[in-house]
């Protein structure tokens, strides 16, 4: 079904490339395809996606739908095969919006939602309650590779567990070095409690540990929660939530213990869970609505025996939509975040078609939805992949491109974690880039802010798919003083990130994207063409997930 159309299109592109560039036909295929990356194409997609008419591409909103339709139209125009559901380009994201109302009583003391706590339903129920004695489980972490088990010897089945936010490293920097970052996350702690059979899990918010102030956390939980339905990791646990530190203090003291002492004990190896001798009574009700959302997936088919496998180039097309006005502007255009990455993904797709790429593995071009709600589009993709995960050889994600100035260096987050790193290194060198030094301020920032876990490559990595995240910041900008790259990054994060001013008026130069996209194109082609799939490095935290992925029968 696919062959005649697509080969026709490819055959068309070759003489054209030759027409414009007489030497093209003699070039290496990867160079030829990379040369086909076109600045006009990128600028056109960027301009449209960041236009006010797209209304900030909000998930479940008109602008988000229009953006999805646009991606599908572009895939269709390029002759990519539909690789979503039922022969379409659309891969459904089972998204729901839930609003929770909750009560929490500590013996006779009624706590105030939003001030003392927030709570939610972890599963699909519309209502749940839990009551009984609370158990303090330290940081709520079970990490064999760190020789750490906060649940050792404890039976928390049916109980309410209370865990500290963060990791023992917050108190003792010798502990949990190079640990998986997610041990610090609320989601992990709630999931771990669920695996242990707890009825509810409350994570203690501590101002010194958490970068986000309590009112922001509380506010976000009092509003609608957008999530996958059913949650990816539902267990027997019904209720999750945050407990503000003062309320946690009251809870502990009511049981006759001292909060500070208890917290300190949690950072000592050999910690054991402690019953708090105080009863909690928590109830949560939810109202749920379905939110329409989709990933958009197009396939450039591979050739030969590896055609059933795929490499993924992804970029989320959603942004924050229309929101609270800032300086009389209520459209959160998301020009950098992530019209730039989406335009980049489309531009690479066009280059592969026009440049007559003939990859061995198929290339899946994916516009992810619902990223801003917590990587839900990519998570849903990984939960229900159009191609079995074991056949997805690699994933490259674009979320914000450098559109400020040409740079001498380039980086991909995750490069040190898998064999994709060396492919990226060669691709960068072929386009005249150095790799950004690991010690440069921009990469230190990436580590501190944990960027690798904050975009759509993360669900792929956790599922074991070797993944790279092209980094939007460079260290050394051409014609700019040393350190300008970090200054640009800071400027973007402070002034424009998730603001209506992340639009086309912030002074973006689309031409700067071209070389970056050539690196991406080369990396993808190399990953698509190498004989065996990319593999995680020995010390990569995703290595065991990677082994599970390839051994899984799917």
């Amino acid at each position, binding site marked *: *079904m*696919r062959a*005649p*159309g697509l080969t*026709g*299109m490819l*055959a*068309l592109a070759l*003489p*054209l490339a*030759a*027409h*414009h560039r*007489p030497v093209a036909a003699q070039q290496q295929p990867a160079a030829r395809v990379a040369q086909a990356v*076109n600045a*006009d*194409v990128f*600028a*056109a*997609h960027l*301009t*449209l996606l960041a*236009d006010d*008419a*797209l209304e900030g591409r909000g998930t*479940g909103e*008109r602008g*988000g*739908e*229009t953006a*999805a*339709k*646009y991606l*599908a*139209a*572009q*895939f*269709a*125009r*390029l*002759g990519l095969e*539909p690789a979503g559901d*039922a*022969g*379409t*380009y*659309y891969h459904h994201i089972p998204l729901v919006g839930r609003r929770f109302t909750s009560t929490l009583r500590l013996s006779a003391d009624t706590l105030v939602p939003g001030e003392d706590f927030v709570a939610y339903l972890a599963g699909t129920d519309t209502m749940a309650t839990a009551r009984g004695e609370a158990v303090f489980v330290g940081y709520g972490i079970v990490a064999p590779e760190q020789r750490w088990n906060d649940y050792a010897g404890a039976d928390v089945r049916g109980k309410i567990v209370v865990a500290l936010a963060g990791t023992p490293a917050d108190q003792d920097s010798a502990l949990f070095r190079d640990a998986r970052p997610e041990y610090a996350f609320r989601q992990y702690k709630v999931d771990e409690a669920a695996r242990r059979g707890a009825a509810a899990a409350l994570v203690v918010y501590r101002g010194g540990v958490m970068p986000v102030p309590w009112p922001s956390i509380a506010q976000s939980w009092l509003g609608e929660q957008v999530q996958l339905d059913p949650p990816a990791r539902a267990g027997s646990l019904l209720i999750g939530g945050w407990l503000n530190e003062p309320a946690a203090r009251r809870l502990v003291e009511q049981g006759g213990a001292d909060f500070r002492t208890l917290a300190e004990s949690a950072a000592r190896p050999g910690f054991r869970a402690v019953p708090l001798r105080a009863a909690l009574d928590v109830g949560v009700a939810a109202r749920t609505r379905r939110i*329409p*959302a*989709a990933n958009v997936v197009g396939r450039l088919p591979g050739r030969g025996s590896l055609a059933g496998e795929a490499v993924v180039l992804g970029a989320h097309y959603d942004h924050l939509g229309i929101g609270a006005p800032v300086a009389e502007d209520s459209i959160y255009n998301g020009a950098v975040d992530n019209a730039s990455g989406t335009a980049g993904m489309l531009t690479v797709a066009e280059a592969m078609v026009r440049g007559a790429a003939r990859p061995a593995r198929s290339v899946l071009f994916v516009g992810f939805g619902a990223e801003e709600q917590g990587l839900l589009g990519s998570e849903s993709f990984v939960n229900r992949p159009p191609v079995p995960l074991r056949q997805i050889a690699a994933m490259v994600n674009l979320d914000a491109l450098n559109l400020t100035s040409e740079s001498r260096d380039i980086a991909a987050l995750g490069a040190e974690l898998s064999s994709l790193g060396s492919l990226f290194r060669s691709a960068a060198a072929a386009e005249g880039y150095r790799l950004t030094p690991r010690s440069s301020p921009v990469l230190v920032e990436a580590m501190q802010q944990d960027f690798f876990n904050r975009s759509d490559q993360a669900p792929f990595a956790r599922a074991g798919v070797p993944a790279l995240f092209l980094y939007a910041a460079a260290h050394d900008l051409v014609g700019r003083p040393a350190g300008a790259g970090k200054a640009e990054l800071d400027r973007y994060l402070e002034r424009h990130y998730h603001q209506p001013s992340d639009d086309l008026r912030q002074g973006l130069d689309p031409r700067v994207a071209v070389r970056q996209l050539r690196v991406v194109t080369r990396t993808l082609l190399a990953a698509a063409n190498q004989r065996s799939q990319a593999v995680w490095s020995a010390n990569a935290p995703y290595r065991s997930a990677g082994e599970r992925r390839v051994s899984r029968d799917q």
Partner: protein
Amino acid sequence: MIRMPLAALRRPLLLVPFALLAAGSASAQSRQPPPERVAREVSSAALQAHLGFLADDALEGRRTGTHGAAVAARYIAAQFQRLGLQPAGDSGTYFHRIPLVVRRPDPILRASGEAAGALRWLDDYVLVPRLADSVADVSGEVVFAGYGIVAPNRGWDDYKQTDVRGKVVLVLPGDPDSTIFDRRMGRPWSSVREKVEVAARRGAAGLLVLHGAGAPPWDAVRALGDERLGLVYDDGLAYWGWIRDSAAAPLVAAGGRSLPELAAAAAWRDFTPVTLPFRLDATLRATVSPVSAVNVLAKLPGRGPHAGESVLLGAHYDHEGIGPPEDGDSIYNGAEDNASGTAAVLGAAEAFARSGVRPERTVVFAAFVAEEEGLLGSEALVLAPPEAMGRVVGMVNGDYLNLYGRTRDIGTVGNELSSLGATLEVAARAESLTVRVDPDDVRRARFFRSDNYPFARAGIPAVRIVNGVDYVGRPPEWGREQRERYWTERYHQPDDELAEWMSVDGLVQQARVAARILMRLADAPAAPAWAASADFAPASPREEASR
């Protein structure tokens, strides 16, 4: 909401075979004649994709001034930009902003003279302001100018040498002689539209049409007084409208004349305008608010001595928006009217960009707005063309193109009017299509009901491509049945949307023909010319002198 996508996007993509290109080398390709090179680059996948997007519910029917039209305009601009085509709109952009407003008139009209008195709005008269102002006083002597027709090639001139500058012209509806002004054929000289144009050209301040025999029902006329979209004009004509015979008769009688007497005189070629013994003083009050609307324009610049001239392929991208629901569907998608034509323009633009041709004349690709409001986008374009567009010397229009499948013929209207007809003939033959002028299209006056008409009025040779009737693999009458079903069941209905049975194969044929015409026009030694007999042929020196 993300709906399941179009059937069109779901089906395997049908691409035009590129066998020749695949086999040939670059040099072989460039040895082919330019029209051939361009036509071969028309991609069926691209047409299908553009059509699918533009006709999607997400575009909400693309009504002028709405969100859906804004998305469509930006989509079109993005395609032009992607192809590396140059902007041909205002100040380096792809957009040509038209002076569109929505007006709700609330005027005062008084007659002064022997039978002085106020006239009753909506009962005695209706007028449509043409200015940007929300209040303007316009008063002038009243001149009766017969039928208000100046048609050089029919040997008719109601104005003669009369100077009507700053005056209010009163005219009869229709025409004096249907054998001279055959309403089923040729330029609609007897239409109000044409009378307005003549009055404006003559410098009149106002035009009122007498509402007597031959006029549309008063209720229809009265509806002109509702809030409506219109352009802002700066040609001096402040308003046009209708006045009832019953209101005009006493004013005329005060000077010792009668309407029947004036009408009788106007039936003859030697009629000369009559100054009437009263003035009309209008206070044009209206609420006026601007409406955002743009034509979208791109060009492939020509080279050489003719580069300042351009040939234009156009189609309107607007439609009717969201309206009264039919069977629960309130989105008037306008798939055939006119996502089809817009897709063809985009497909042809892509073909030019990819082919690497270097035309002599500049080639302009245009998507018009506000067609459904009365061809306003194309009218605004010819009235105030952006400099970047060059001087347009020929125009091809696509409106309601073929989504029914491959044909053996291609339809047209207006081909007899200019040399474009012969160019179309050659282009069609190269695609093995015969050119057909269907009597039904002539009867429906389809040349005068789309964006080619304002171009023609501005003196620019123009032709419209329409659907053939002879479909490959279908019974002989099938094509006409499809059209009839379109006119009776889908035209300006929510059902004008993409359906599973439709195909872009015929649209590909039409886009290829259009691309060939454009390429030929661009490289021809001479610019297109009107036929000597055409109603749009340039005015004779005598008529020029009489202005």
